[in-house]
């Protein structure tokens, strides 16, 4: 599913977190939002998910204007930095959650839900953990459960907010590779927020560099490395051009 954003603005009090941002993301792309903290990249992601609402501008999913739609209508798969798993539920119940709260007319049968959850656990290579609780798992495992939970409802877009930010370097690299392979296989339109350039350049088809709420540079990793950059981008990437 393609996503189009037109002159999106969002302020918190007097502070503009996202300032007049326009962007088009094509179906099947993996795009990284890269920037220092406070640059507005997470706010933009939350605006796209419907967890925040814009002051100005519009958001389109394909041809549909979703600007005023709530997050539960947009149903963009969202993965949080701190996993946000439901700690009082088992892993099975966590992954099944989105399927169980679906409207009755669209809800899968119990058997189908069971089947889907187990197959997702297999996809994320954590079969056999369905009766555990989130606190019994490691950080890397928890984040993969969060992926599976978001994927269970078959979203048309996946939004990842610093998905590897809370993990140690080794697990980060493993999960990054896994995510890259997953995206190769499924071609699910994905946006992910990161402050780690290595991560952005390795996984993403295109990288969007943010600072102070606006886009500073946009392009494929090669274009960004080789192209002309403004002072902020040069400084941020520590490029010697």
């Amino acid at each position, binding site marked *: 599913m393609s996503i189009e954003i037109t002159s999106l603005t969002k302020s918190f009090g007097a502070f503009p977190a996202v300032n007049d941002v326009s962007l088009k993301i094509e179906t099947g792309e993996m795009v990284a939002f890269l920037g220092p903290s406070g640059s507005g990249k997470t706010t933009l992601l939350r605006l796209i998910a*419907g967890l925040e609402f814009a002051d100005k501008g519009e958001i389109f999913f394909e041809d549909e204007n979703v600007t005023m739609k709530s997050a*539960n209508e947009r149903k963009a798969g969202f993965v949080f930095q701190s996993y*946000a798993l*439901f700690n009082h539920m088992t892993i099975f119940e966590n992954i099944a959650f989105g399927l169980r709260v679906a409207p009755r007319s669209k809800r899968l049968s119990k058997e189908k839900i069971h089947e889907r959850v187990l197959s997702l656990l297999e996809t994320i*290579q954590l079969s056999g953990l369905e009766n555990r609780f989130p606190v*019994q*798992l490691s950080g890397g495992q928890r984040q993969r459960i969060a992926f599976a*939970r978001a994927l269970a409802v078959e979203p048309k877009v996946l939004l990842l907010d610093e998905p590897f930010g809370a993990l140690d370097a*080794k697990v980060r690299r*493993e999960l990054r590779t896994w995510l890259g392979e997953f995206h190769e296989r499924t071609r699910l339109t994905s946006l992910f927020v990161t402050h780690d350039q290595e991560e952005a350049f390795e996984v993403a088809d295109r990288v969007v560099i943010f600072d102070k709420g606006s886009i500073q540079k946009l392009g494929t990793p090669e274009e960004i490395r080789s192209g002309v950059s403004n002072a902020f981008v040069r400084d941020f990437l520590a490029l010697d051009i």
Partner: protein
Amino acid sequence: MRRLLIGIVLAFFTLFLALPLIVVFQGALAKGLGTFLIAFTDHDILHSVQITLLVAVIAVPANALFGIAAAWAITRFRFWGRALLLALIDLPLWVSPVIGGLIYVLLCGRRGYLGPWLQAHDIRIIFALPGMVLTTTFVTFPFVARSLIPLMEAQGCEEEEAALTLGAGGFEILRRITLPKIRWGFFYGLILCNARAMGEFGAVSVVSAKISGMTNTMPLEIERLYNDYLFASAFAVASALSLLALITLSLKTLAEWENKRQFEAGQCSLLEPTIEGNGDQLKG
């Protein structure tokens, strides 16, 4: 120093908390168990127990609903007047309960703002049960909301946001995510609210007609019996009320234990070795 401090606390505890409780039960049983039990066959006394329970049965669920709604609104949304609402929730704790009662007299009494209208429609609030329920609800309002707000503030709203992006609606999120997470804090607030609702004297005494056998709650009935020199009966009702307080106290302690146990269960399993040796490693 440590011994001295503990000694002071224990002495204080004995003098101000344990002793009165013992005196109440002693007073109740002073003329034998027979007199004690006879007190609870008296129509007026039994009626006061009924009224007390009835008031609590209405006021506590009402405040359970208000409390959840207020805590949800305050911790999950940023809106104009939020700080004011937060301050107003505490109002019943700051003002004397008598004032809480007077507010309703000024509002609904014969000469109050709503008085003429209520009279025209033949609705009695002051000096009747509705007034007692209203004032009790007012006085006990902070308990549920106050025990939930810090809890919900600390938990944050990420899990609820996650549920939202998975397509869950507001009530679904409340039922499946929010309520299970706050259940012990909620239970804690409920029993505190209930204890206060049953024990309230000041506010209720302003709006009750204080007619024994009609509009007297247990605390009001205790005062009447005492003023009528019926000490044994007064202490009997007082001991029943104290018993309710003791039950509340043990339920509260139970809630705290259970909460702690569950919390620690989470903590302990964190320290457990994760499955497949180093759980962080991806297979394949």
